[in-house]
């Protein structure tokens, strides 16, 4: 199911990181209802630590977070052997072309702009995890 060394699980584990409680709650709710377990992080440092420790199957990251921003977390996860293949979706209001470029350069797999449709987020998560 997950060929990169992450433990096999009953329900896939997703890491959601955002400093805005409203978004975090919504994303967690939607993903849990769609059959995933969700870890929550409220800043970039926490997100990185959780990702390395718990090895989720996918990470959904906000960009504008305190301590480490989403781009930086992505870069660091790509640099770590254990998490270098972890799919990462950036979910953010930073929507300039340069930001999207920076996101993909940092190693993200997908970039969703806010305002967003939770349905679409779920669909993209499913698409990525379904591939594995």
């Amino acid at each position, binding site marked *: 199911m997950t060929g990169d060394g992450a433990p096999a699980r009953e329900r896939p584990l997703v890491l959601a990181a955002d400093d805005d409680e409203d978004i975090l709650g919504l994303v967690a709710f939607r993903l849990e209802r769609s059959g995933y377990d969700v870890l929550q992080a409220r800043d970039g440092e926490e997100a990185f630590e959780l990702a390395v420790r718990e090895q989720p199957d996918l990470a959904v990251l906000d960009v*504008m977070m*305190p*301590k480490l*921003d989403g*781009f*930086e977390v992505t870069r660091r996860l790509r640099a770590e052997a254990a998490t270098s293949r972890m799919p990462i979706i950036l979910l953010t*209001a*930073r*929507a*300039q*072309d*340069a*930001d999207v470029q*920076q996101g993909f350069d940092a190693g993200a797999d997908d970039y969703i*702009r*806010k*305002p967003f449709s939770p349905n679409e987020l779920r669909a993209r998560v499913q698409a990525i995890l379904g591939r594995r």
Partner: protein
Amino acid sequence: MNVVHNLALAYSIVAFVYFAILNSVYLLLTFLAWRDMGAEVRARRYLALDEMFRSPLTPGVSVLVPAFNEEPVIVESVRSLLVLRYPRHEVVVVNDGSGDGTLAALQRAFDLAPVRLALRDLIPTARVRATYVSRAHHGLVVVDKENGGRSDALNAGINAARQPYVCVIDADSLLEPDALLKVSKPILDDPNVLAATGGTIRIANGSRVDHGRVVEARVPTSRLATIQVLEYFRAFLVARVGWSKLNALGIISGAFGLFHRSLVETVGGYWTDTVGEDFELTIRLHRHLRDRGEPYRIAFISDPVCWTEAPEQLATLARQRRRWQRGLWEGIRRHLRMVGNPRYGVIGLVAMPYFLLFEFLSPLFALGGLVVTVVLWLLGSLPTAYFVSFLLVSIVLGLVLTTAALALEEFSYQRYRRWREIARLLAYAVLENLGYHQLHDVWRTLGYVDILRGKTAWGTQQRRGFSTPDEAPAVPGEKTPS
């Protein structure tokens, strides 16, 4: 003897009138600030900052940070600028030939790589030695140049800037995450009329700082810094709001100001022969725009906040205030023809004379007048009634205005959470009249001496660095009795 006595009496009366006018002006400004605050608080409901952040149409801003010997603070400051909530911005740090490890600190913290940046040469500056970009952080540029002073460094920053707007910041400052959005919004909503905006400066001393953000605002433990908190409240939350409403804002602080880059280039950039470059540029912009004859505004926005480190040592603070006096004089002298000149509207008729009489010349009236009045009263030449009313008009009225400024902050921003902090501020509102104001006037008088002697240098700054959650706010051994 009689002549001297009469002159002294006249002097005292002039000082009396001076205080009466000054505090009346302040009363007017306070009234305007209160009204504006009401409107501003209500306007927050429909401010639409989120829209500005996510809009692809929002123009970019180049944040300029001139740095001279800022090693203890520069990295934290730049970090706070890189994470600003703004859709498109770059940070241009100009190392003005620092003698300490400023550049090295930047190189270590941000993984700088030398890049031969193409620089515009619209404004002449001292020689640029090298330019760098950060490999780790998108949008950080460092210009390393030979020392030329703050104005020169800013001009080099303008030459390197790539965005249509420039935001000028001090190297020891921390901008709040939304500050750039808030200070830019009025200009971006009306770019043909708004020429420049400035934001509020607040004192960070003693506050909890984490990763470049002031997490918890606290009143400083240092007495000197606490008094400065009150000064900055009066200056920013009251005075500048009021002047801005009258469209007579004479100064956009160099510690937090936003300008159209093209406009600053058109007027020739910052003037390098002054230590009050922010004041002089603002006046020059007013002059240029009024000469051009089109309607314009230069506005102060009280909501966006820039946190700065205030001097806690008497010697450093004295140097700063003496420097401000010199800067004031240099700017006024350069534009003397504007003073009292109806051609320059409310700037010429109100703002410039105010700066001249009530800021630059104030020690003459305030300190001199107070001393003379006290002496005359002690000698019995003045009726006690007169003496008491002198004190009322100068000190007590000032106290009322300070309390009003505190109340204003409380109603609009409420940054200080604890009771005892407000109590502390109130106590110092009284205490500052018993020694600090007088000392301040002494420094400013020394500023006259500097001017007469033709002093030009900036003097040294002493940087303590921001406190972090792990450190106690006051570093042992550095506290100076004030």
